[in-house]
């Protein structure tokens, strides 16, 4: 006899998964998602990712959760980066380069300024 049904088991797994995501910093003030599908990578998203990674590893960027994501479908504006803050409208940047990524770090993530001209 099975005591635990698959449905109960998957709910437990989900709770554990959510716990792991939270403990990896999901509840940080800002969450940054970098598009990393083949098309995004071809447009240069690996460089962009590296800039964010380095900023976090180097300690200049704190309280930020960084993750990759798949293709959202906005091909002609790739690479794309989203900055999500609870309670605010998600900000989506297009055509992000190394330089733009550095500016997003300095102006948006550190000072809270949304850089309108790059917003999709």
């Amino acid at each position, binding site marked *: 006899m*099975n005591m635990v049904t*698959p*449905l109960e088991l998957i709910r437990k797994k*989900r709770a554990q998964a959510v716990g792991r995501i939270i403990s990896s910093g999901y509840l940080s003030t800002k969450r940054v998602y970098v598009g990393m599908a*083949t*098309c995004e990578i071809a447009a240069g998203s690996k460089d962009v990712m590296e800039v964010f990674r380095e900023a976090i590893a180097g300690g200049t960027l704190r309280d930020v959760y960084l993750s990759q994501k798949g293709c959202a479908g*906005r*091909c002609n504006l790739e690479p794309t980066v989203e900055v999500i803050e609870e309670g*605010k409208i998600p900000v989506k940047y297009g055509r992000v380069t190394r330089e733009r990524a550095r500016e997003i770090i300095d102006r948006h993530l550190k000072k809270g300024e949304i850089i309108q001209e790059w917003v999709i």
Partner: protein
Amino acid sequence: MEKYVITLCDGTTCIQKKSREIRTALEAEIQKAGIADRVAIHLSGCLGMCAKGPIVIVNPGYSMYGNVTINDVPEIVQEHLIKGRPIARLTIDEDHLYNRFFRVFGDADFFGKQMRITLRNCGIIDPENIDDYLALRGYEALAKVLTDMTPQKVVETVKKSGLRGRGGAGFPTGVKWELTAKEPGPEKYVICNADEGDPGAFMDRSAIEGDPHTVIEGMIIGGFAIGSNKGIIYIRAEYPLAIKRLEKALADARKNGMLGDKILGSDFSFDIEIRLGAGAFVCGEETALIHSIEGARGMPRPRPPFPAQSGLFNKPTLINNVETWANIPVIILDGADWFSSIGTATSKGTKVFALAGKIKNTGLVEVPMGTTLREIVFNVGGGIPNGKKFKAVQTGGPSGGCLPEKYLETQIDYESLAAAGSIMGSGGMIVIDEDSCMVNMARFFLEFTQDESCGRCTPCREGTKRMLEILTRISEGQGQPGDIEKLERLGNMIKKSSLCGLGQSAPNPVLSTIKNFREEYEEHIHQHKCRAGVCTSLLTFEILDSCVGCGACKKVCPSEAISGKRKEKHAIDPQKCIHCGQCFMACKFGAIRKG
């Protein structure tokens, strides 16, 4: 002060329930309150909650209001937008899986008209982290099936949902499942066809790269429904990142007990392996695909028997496309009734398109069935760039047809597209503007299918070759009277007598362009003229009186066809001219006429 984005559902049902009047009232109320500078109003496509329409969403915070009437408008503005207090009385709490995408992207116009069911997690989650998928109800559909449903019930649910094959042919998925389930076991196979081959199409790649687990979950449910323990994903080797993410996802699923022996503690066991294809277009055809997995040459065979009866290693086999599989978890969780409420009478759910060509917003879009071509091209796609005129839209890739402006009101569903002379196909959609030559376009697609013809049956092997020869000579100015009729005769013959879908559809781009743009073919043949200026052999170049004699054209001409003294008008020797167009591009004074 807080900025707000309001999204109004602009689906058919909500419009009937006066959503447009609500919009007008909202705008007026916002104006009156003097907060127009910090509130933006967007429209969305059908949000799939028609029963509770009209739907109004206020972001940030994602407050979803249902059954909104004009009388509620002042309260929304005063309470929510001015005092920042969401209105509990109007809030509906219906959690659909696709909502997640809308939460992040709902305020952008490009995404607003879309409805993302299969791509619900693409661009939202980290595809390499199973936790991200689990957190968004991942594998819950599988668990529900294993806990509460019999295989028969699963088949019935899929049948009832009205889902049809997204690979292009549109065969009812549930019927396919039922046929395979009926066959005797125990050895049966489940296959995911990820052999995406249409030029310019990337739906399956993006779906797998963005959310590999949903395809895997769909396949496990398929295995349970038909009584199979073995799944295979056939994907082309030229998709390395998709393969890497699938491998990671499979390993993670195994580690978490979603694949392997006794899945999630049930009595059902199932595992999936990946098979790489070498990238032959014909291997997207199911019998050719099966041959390729068996290690034989990828060639189709006559059907029946269908794979449901005798497929991989002559065992009953269930083959579905990536997008079809990705729909399954949603159908199980949100129900067949909900799923079949989206779309048209004959085509349910949504369809993913890879929007490309002469269009502002190139990209991947998912829209409800029944959306018109005009909405996709001009609303979602943003129209034609550089002020050019729309000429045609090509659906279904090299197997589809070109539809001119008069078909723009055509609704996206299998039957309507077929009636208009094209096909749904797997989801390629190429927009063509006035600068494109339809003869050249048809030649490009035929060149592709001719090259990819496996050579097994004569009509396709020989017929496409002859058609290509005729098209080539037309585009080179060597067309003969009667060529159009010859193309039509050959095309129809190939369609009727070819063995598989490749040959049966290969003439479509040619036949549909002849049907809709016959005058362009005639101009090429009789007047040796290409109105779009694409077929270079038909172009003539002439230097006009405005020539200042700078010599720029003379310098770039590779065949030394241009002569003239400095500061005097130059001339082109038509005997030597090779129609390359270099001089036309080099002239800074617009003194060279191309025609």
